[in-house]
């Protein structure tokens, strides 16, 4: 157990190690940026901790304590509060976390404008707190709302039932957790305390990375940190919390928090459907793919999985499926926002910010656009086979081979891990039935000591069954999903190589076209037709320009691909290492427990 603490501490230390630099940097830049807000930030930070304690503490309780506590907050905020006296008491919370990111005046204007009017957001904010205190695993949003005493705004009826809608305001959580470590307000569900250590640092550290959070039922907050080179105040931090899967249609809510000046507000939540994620991917890949960027791919559509969920089958496979999808979407979004170029794309911003996205119909399988896509894919495949690229750069060739080999092996590994999961689930089932049988045997046994021992054996085996279940779940989410992600990413890498090849092809085609034009010109010259000659000369000029452009394009694409691949590899290594460690830690933990269980059996066996 000691070691676990060490491990946790170690990983946290690593984080802080990396980020102390940025923290101090950003803190230094904060005051100069906006003196008042800077000081207010400090002040707000301190004072707001108190109100936040009270506020969060009160949330399930009553409204009345809110106004006095909020008064403690710095002046500018008071304006806000007085502005919105009649509004849901939770609103005041919203500006407070925003203070922690110090984009000055925007803070105070934006929240006021954006927050009050937005019904969905309000209710969404309603839910996070709700969820924080009551852990509504799998509870529908309607239920959560009914539980929540404070929700003034009715949830928009169009949402359907959100399964465990857990949109959360990360800032809230951060502040809350920072606070909670101190006065030990035990209102938070246990799971958030898990991330306590990490979050409390983030409070002091001005976020140096983009974080995306999608949480479904359980209050997981995955926060990842990347360094960005924003000279202005704090680096962007995005936290998106998404809850997927209503019964009627998949809904996702992305809650984000950011300090990027390009975003209007600091923290916001939006609802997104699964098809929206797919639509985003389509747009990004169309725009950036041909340039050689590796656009992270989202999880695939799964008709079987979704049908099961829609039908309302309440078994573990559908919850599994939803959880897997949620995790995959979260990681997908995280990769998108981590990519330094993709984050600049207005589509991404729109995806993260805009309230209602136009429905992405072209992602539907059975639509016109869908068929078009399929045809395109087919032609691409054919052309890939026919294009024989003259590879001038051996680096690319090697890399491609590596990628392909890795892809195959990863696929194999994936199937193996899936079968491991199946076997483990079998084991847990069998252990459970054995436990029952042993219990019956113990009751049939007439020797009392042996009978007691047998029933204890039954208990131990029961616990082992639990353990095996957990281990199977862990295998799935830490290991199998990771591998599935890699496989998809490798596919994307392959795609970028393909784009490069297309660019090369274009260049070659242009060259051959130019050649043809030159020949035509020569012919015309020889045939002496001055008017057509002029045309031909113009065409030649045009094609020469094209050739140069395509050549340059190709070079550019190659360079981008190279850069991307290197970046991809680095990221992959980092991710992989982290995931492995997490997986092994959990293996270790389960072993410790096995030891405990069997020791308890042994000790009692002193008959």
């Amino acid at each position, binding site marked *: 157990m000691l070691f676990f603490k060490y491990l946790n501490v170690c990983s946290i230390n690593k984080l802080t190690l990396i980020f102390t630099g940025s923290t101090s940097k950003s803190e230094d830049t904060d005051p100069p940026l906006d003196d008042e807000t800077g000081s207010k930030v400090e002040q707000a930070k301190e004072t707001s901790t108190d109100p936040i304690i009270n506020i969060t503490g009160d949330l399930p309780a009553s409204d009345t304590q809110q106004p006095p506590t909020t008064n403690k907050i710095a002046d500018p905020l008071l304006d806000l509060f007085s502005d919105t006296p009649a509004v849901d008491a939770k609103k005041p919370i919203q500006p407070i976390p925003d203070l922690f990111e110090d984009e000055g005046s925007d803070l105070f204007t934006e929240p006021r404008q954006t927050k009050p009017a937005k019904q969905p957001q309000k209710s969404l904010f309603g839910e996070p707190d709700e969820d924080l205190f009551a852990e509504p695993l799998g509870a529908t949003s309607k239920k959560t709302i009914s539980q929540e005493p404070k929700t003034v705004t009715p949830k928009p009826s169009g949402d359907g039932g959100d399964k465990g809608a857990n949109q959360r305001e990360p800032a809230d959580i951060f502040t809350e957790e920072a606070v909670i470590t101190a006065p030990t307000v035990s209102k938070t569900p246990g799971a958030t305390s898990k991330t306590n250590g990490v979050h409390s640092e983030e409070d002091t550290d001005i976020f140096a990375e983009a974080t995306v959070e999608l949480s479904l039922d359980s209050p997981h907050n995955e926060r990842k940190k990347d360094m960005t080179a924003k000279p202005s105040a704090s680096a962007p931090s995005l936290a998106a919390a998404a809850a997927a899967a209503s019964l009627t249609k998949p809904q996702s809510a992305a809650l984000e928090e950011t300090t990027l000046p390009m975003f209007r507000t600091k923290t916001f939540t939006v609802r997104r459907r699964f098809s929206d994620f797919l639509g985003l991917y389509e747009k990004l890949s169309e725009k950036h793919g041909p340039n050689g960027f590796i656009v992270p791919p989202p999880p695939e559509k799964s008709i079987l999985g979704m049908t099961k969920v829609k039908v309302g089958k309440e078994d573990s496979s559908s919850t599994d499926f939803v959880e897997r999808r949620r995790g995959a979407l979260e990681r997908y979004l995280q990769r998108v926002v981590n990519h330094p170029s993709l984050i600049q794309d207005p589509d991404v911003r729109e995806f993260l910010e805009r309230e209602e996205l136009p429905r992405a119909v072209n992602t539907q399988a059975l639509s016109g656009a869908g068929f078009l896509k399929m045809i395109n894919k087919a032609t691409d495949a054919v052309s890939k086979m026919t294009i024989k690229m003259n590879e001038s750069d051996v680096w690319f060739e090697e890399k491609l081979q*590596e990628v392909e080999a890795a892809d195959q092996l990863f696929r194999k590994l994936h199937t193996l891990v899936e079968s491991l999961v199946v*076997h483990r689930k079998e084991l847990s089932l069998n252990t459970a039935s054995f436990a029952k049988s042993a219990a019956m045997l113990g009751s049939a046994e007439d020797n009392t000591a042996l009978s007691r021992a047998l029933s204890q054996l039954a208990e131990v085996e029961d616990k082992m069954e639990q353990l095996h279940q957990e281990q199977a779940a862990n295998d799935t989410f830490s290991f199998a999903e990771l591998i599935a992600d890699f496989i998809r990413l490798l596919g994307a890498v392959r795609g970028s190589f393909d784009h490069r090849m297309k660019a090369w092809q274009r260049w070659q085609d242009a060259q051959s076209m130019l050649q043809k034009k030159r020949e035509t010109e020569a012919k015309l010259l020889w045939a002496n037709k001055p008017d057509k000659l002029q045309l031909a000369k113009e065409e030649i000029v045009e094609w020469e320009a094209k050739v140069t452009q395509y050549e340059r394009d190709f070079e550019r694409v190659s360079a981008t691909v190279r850069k991307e691949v290197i970046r991809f590899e680095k990221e992959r290594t980092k991710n992989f290492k982290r995931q492995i460690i997490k997986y092994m830690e959990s293996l270790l933990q389960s072993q410790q427990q096995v030891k405990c269980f069997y020791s308890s059996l042994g000790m009692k066996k002193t008959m």
Partner: protein
Amino acid sequence: MLKATLKTKRLHSTQSVSDTPHLPQLSREVKFTVHTKTTLSSFQKPEFSVPRQHEDFIWLHDTLVETEDYAGLIIPPAPPKPDFEGPREKMHKLGEGEATMTKEEYTKMKQELEAEYLAVFKKTVQVHEIFLQRLSSHPILNKDRNFQIFLEYDQDLSVRRKNAKEMFGGFFKNMVKSADEVLISGVKEVDDFFEQEKTFLLDYYSKIKDSTAKAEKMTRSHKNIADDYIRISATLNSLSSDDSTANKKHLEKMSDLFEKLRKVEGRVASDQELKLTELLRYYMRDIQAAKDLLYRRARALADYENSNKALDKARLKSKDIPQAEEHQQQCLQKFDKLSESGKKELTSFKGRRVVAFRKNLIEMAELEIKHAKVRSSIQLYYICFIMCTNELQYAWGICKILCEQI
């Protein structure tokens, strides 16, 4: 003092040139060597060995069961036939899947298979040995002439395997027996002790049969997981050999981890099998033997009651009275003898059972703890290895492991 130990050797087919062990197709191919040490004068030599086959054991068991004199004793259950079905199936699958696996993976799986085969072998030997040992430690049974022949006769016993008729006859007898059992359970039991024992044994038997089946499934799942680990480890290995980035180190380590883990998992599975499943299986058979004793006694009781009725009838008819009386006396004697020895046997059986259960369960728990420790230290080691970026952390990790061991 009579001590019999059992050794066995495999029958190797001379034609096979490969290094794969020849899995015995028939139990005939498994040869046991029974080694006896004795101080009893009834034997010619103080120490001797004879080769025996599985059929010989069955023959011995059957003759003992059929001996009237031993009706009041619990005859130790016959050892089950050597069952290499599991490993053989796996071998078959392995042969089929050879093309899809890498050479390493194939070798590892073959090793695993051989280990499994050996485990089955060990189990078989153990079971046969226990059978003989129980016979030799039983005060009455070890004097049995057939038993002595079994131990001493150094020629092949040429036990005629039951031909079809006898097999069928045996099957029929079993059916009659079970029908009888049902009838006889209706017979009123005079002795409380036996009444209790009967209900207890019947109940216990069904429960232990259930537990045995479930335990078997559990150990099989464990084995499946160990096999999965092998394949995962091999795949990770090939991944790491292809990889040229920093990932390579991680993948290697992970592959090693799984390799080591699967050894532990395999051992856990086989230990659990030996201690738990075998224990349950053996006592299931033993309880069946005890039930057989009860059956015989109940049969004798029924006979006695029938003879009583016959005597009454004879008395009424005033015919054949002395025969009837004698018959009745015989039955009564038999019944009494059975009851007396039965009581003794059953009591000692109970004690024996409790002791065996206790020993095996404790051993199993201890083994599980040991394996869990091994597993956790392995994992600790690998976590350190992967995480460590400098010597200091590495050393720190090792210290942690050592602390854990203490």
